[in-house]
């Protein structure tokens, strides 16, 4: 039908309809799949409660709840203050060292929580070098002085805050950079100083981002096992482990997990609610360079010290301790196999990041295309995995996978007389799926907030201009939200590098990662020996973190478009 007159033709109606169907069903199905393991865990709620519950309620449950609440409050407040404060300083003020702090403040993201926990305990515990030196110098005995106990609730809150604040920093900074200049300039003309315009204008405007960042930090804190266990703090997560694996009561453990998920769901709903109220796209299409406050004298020193403090305590100190231990032990720990571990960690993280970004992009876009409740709920539940402790998720993934494998095997045996064995379980696919379940929340958050910048009318305009749903995604969304996709991928990458419990239980034979190595040695009480693997995680993680920071700086609207 290529006559001379026909210069172009609209896409065929039937194909367009088919595509439209695929779009409505496929990604929702994907979200449902990712949500499934969480549901498997939650399904245990319907198993009748065992006598373990009364035992827990009579003995340890209240301590779990108390510690968990304090942990959430402490880490929430701590990450909010450090994250938003440093983000404000680095986006809106000029002071010596800002250009370094700008990206360096994200570095603690690369430090696994358990690694900072080990290093802080190693340095500051009673038998550690700091307290020993104090006792030597002053001739003190055990009861002659007071020193904060590292392995305590306070210690756990401190170390978690120090490595988790970058989530808040990341999102807050992006929000500050995206803020309408007008609001800030009005603030300035009204005579507000930087401090006042931070508290009065920027913080309230950035609320959705702050809530998003804090809830990511809190979900990670809630699901943490290594730190709280090592610090002897009983939380819901340690309780879940103890009930499931030691008391051997999976249903009671899952009921504990479900209780925690309700808590998390409440957190997420709060975030949703706060976002809905603040659902404003940029009111103006024009952007000018942000006005910055020049800090001088003691103000500059203070700003510099605040950023240096966060960076030093969250990254430099633990990294130096890890380096010292690595130097002490490198002869025993670093060999050719170590390279293999690093490669395994890297490729798992890279693969998962790619898969997570693709899945997230498709799911977010599909939910946007078809705003039905099923899709939104599936997406929500798929994001819950982040708050569930890794081991619990792993079991939630393991059961359906193994069931599927067995079903396939049964079928093959019955029909072809051949056993297919385990096709999925114990392979990398299952492991990567487990990572997806666990970390999809991170990329969902990043992609969602990026996609909110594409107005629905842009979709409408593109569709009527002849672009099908997939073309709109590739030609409009992907280029506009590029920075958001990069952020999502890199966050997932860094998280997978650090991930432990799911890796431990799901990995194939003879497949070790840096995190597994670090954990095995550390849990065998060979802290110094574990340092080289932990340090390698940090080193491999630094590169994406730096890329991430640069991407955000460039993602300021207008500037991004101008440079594409």
């Amino acid at each position, binding site marked *: 039908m290529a006559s001379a007159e026909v210069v172009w033709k609209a896409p065929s109606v039937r194909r367009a309809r088919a595509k439209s169907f695929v779009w409505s069903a496929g990604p929702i199905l994907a979200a449902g799949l990712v949500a499934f393991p969480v549901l498997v865990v939650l399904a245990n709620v319907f198993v009748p409660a065992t006598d373990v519950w009364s035992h827990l309620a009579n003995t340890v449950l209240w301590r779990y709840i108390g510690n968990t609440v304090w942990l959430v409050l402490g880490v929430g407040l701590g990450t909010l203050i450090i994250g938003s404060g440093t983000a404000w300083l680095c986006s809106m003020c000029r002071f010596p060292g800002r250009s370094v702090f700008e990206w360096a403040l994200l570095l603690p993201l690369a430090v696994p929580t358990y690694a900072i926990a080990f290093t802080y305990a190693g340095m500051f515990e009673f038998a550690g070098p700091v307290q020993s030196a104090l006792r030597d110098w002053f001739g003190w005995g055990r009861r002659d002085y007071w020193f904060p106990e590292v392995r305590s609730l306070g210690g756990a809150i401190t170390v978690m805050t120090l490595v988790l604040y970058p989530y808040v920093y990341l999102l807050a900074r992006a929000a500050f950079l995206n803020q309408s200049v007008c609001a800030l300039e009005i603030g300035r003309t009204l005579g507000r100083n930087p401090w006042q315009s931070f508290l009065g204008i920027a913080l309230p405007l950035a609320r959705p981002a702050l809530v998003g960042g804090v809830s990511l930090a809190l979900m990670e804190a809630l699901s943490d096992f290594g730190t709280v266990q090592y610090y002897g703090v009983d939380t819901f997560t340690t309780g879940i482990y103890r009930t499931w694996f030691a008391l051997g009561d999976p249903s009671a453990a899952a009921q504990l997990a479900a209780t925690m998920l309700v808590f998390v769901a409440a957190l997420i709903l709060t975030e949703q609610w706060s976002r809905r109220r603040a659902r404003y796209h940029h009111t103006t299409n024009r952007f000018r360079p942000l006005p910055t406050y020049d800090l001088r004298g003691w103000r500059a020193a203070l700003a510099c010290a605040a950023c240096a403090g966060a960076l030093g305590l969250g990254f430099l100190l633990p990294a130096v301790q890890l380096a010292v231990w690595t130097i002490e032990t490198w002869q025993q720990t670093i060999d050719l196999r170590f390279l293999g571990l690093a490669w395994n960690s890297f490729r798992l993280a890279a693969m998962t990041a790619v898969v997570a970004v693709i899945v997230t992009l498709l799911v977010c876009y599909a939910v946007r295309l078809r705003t039905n409740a099923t899709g939104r709920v599936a997406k929500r539940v798929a994001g819950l995995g982040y708050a569930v402790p890794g081991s619990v998720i792993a079991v939630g993934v393991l059961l359906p996978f193994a069931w599927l494998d067995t079903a396939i095997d049964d079928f093959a045996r019955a029909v072809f007389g051949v056993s297919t064995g385990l096709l999925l379980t114990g392979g990398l696919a299952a492991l990567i799926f487990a990572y997806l379940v666990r970390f999809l929340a991170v990329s969902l958050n990043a992609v969602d907030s990026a996609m909110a910048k594409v107005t629905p009318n842009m979709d409408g305009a593109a569709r009527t201009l002849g672009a099908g749903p997939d073309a709109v995604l590739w030609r409009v969304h992907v280029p506009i939200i590029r920075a958001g996709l990069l952020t999502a991928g890199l966050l997932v990458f860094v998280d997978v590098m650090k991930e432990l419990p799911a890796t431990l*239980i799901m990995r194939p034979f003879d497949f070790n990662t840096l995190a597994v190595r670090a954990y095995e040695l550390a849990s065998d009480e060979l802290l110094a020996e574990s340092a080289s693997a932990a340090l390698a995680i940090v080193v491999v993680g630094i590169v994406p973190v730096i890329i991430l920071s640069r991407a955000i700086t460039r993602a300021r609207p207008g500037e991004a478009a101008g440079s594409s």
Partner: protein
Amino acid sequence: MPVTSNYTHPIRMGRQLIAGALVVLVGLFSAGSAAIADGEVNVYSARKEALIKPLLDRFTEETGIAVKLVTGSPHQLVERMAAEGRNSPADVLITADAGNLAHAKAAGLLQVSESPVLEEAVPERFRDPDKMWWGLSLRARVVVYAPDRVEASDLTTYEGLADPIWSDRLLVRSSSNVYNQSLIASMISAHGEQETENWARGVVSNMARDPKGGDTDQIRAVAAGEGDIAIVNTYYYGRLAASTKSEDREVVEQTRLFFPNQDDRGTHVNVSGAGIAVHAPNPDNAMKLLEYLASPAAQALFAELNHEIPVRNGVAASEIVGAWGAFKQDELPLSKLGDLNRAAIELADRAGWR
């Protein structure tokens, strides 16, 4: 339909992204799968890689049978075996305590392994009466103390640790640790639940600090003076003694080891052991591996690697462990520990032993 270059850059970028992603996926997706072929054996081990791999390597050298290994926490390995069911690739399950082997047996995950070789090598109380699992190496739960602050004569028994003379002096890790659970289980077996709970309360009230860290941390804390006595496993102490680091050896010099209950039932011991999976695809090789691990050569390696005590009579302990001398072991059959494990945990919860 011609597609031209100048306006297509976002799409090209999209395609490149997809192509790149595919290359990454395909290129990186090559994972080792489970060994089902002959000449191989698959091991699920709760012993850390560093503490089992050298033995497995030696086995491969001697028999030509390749070993594939996954390590993890015992509970999770058991969960994984249960989930995998009939198709589980696991041949051998290795754990670092008897309780978890008993748990795997109760879950129907182990099979009977008839072997005169093993029966000869492993004393009866260190193995399952139904021959489903076999102990391979021993560790004792002992007391480490600071000789400058503790009269050795004050140390007698586990029961004595609840005595108020140890108030604010005792260090011990969390009851989440299976070694403490086993110790409590052995106390229940000796004295019944009620008396053991009173004892546990006494232990808790004597603690110099809330339980935290591992056994090595407790030993270090004794040396540093945070407490005067600590309940720990022998091999951690042995490891410090053998350390290349001078500060580790200093810790050992500042402390002493005490074997409790020498005058009655003996010091509590536990085993690291192994059993053959019920659906083992390579049961013959699995048996060869078990028999190898119980052989004098492998037993000597256990002793050397991690300062554990060989189960096999006549195999010498490491030089360091040997120097502590012989001691009387609690005769309690270890299969009992698994039965009492849950009761031990609940008891610890009630007594406030975190």
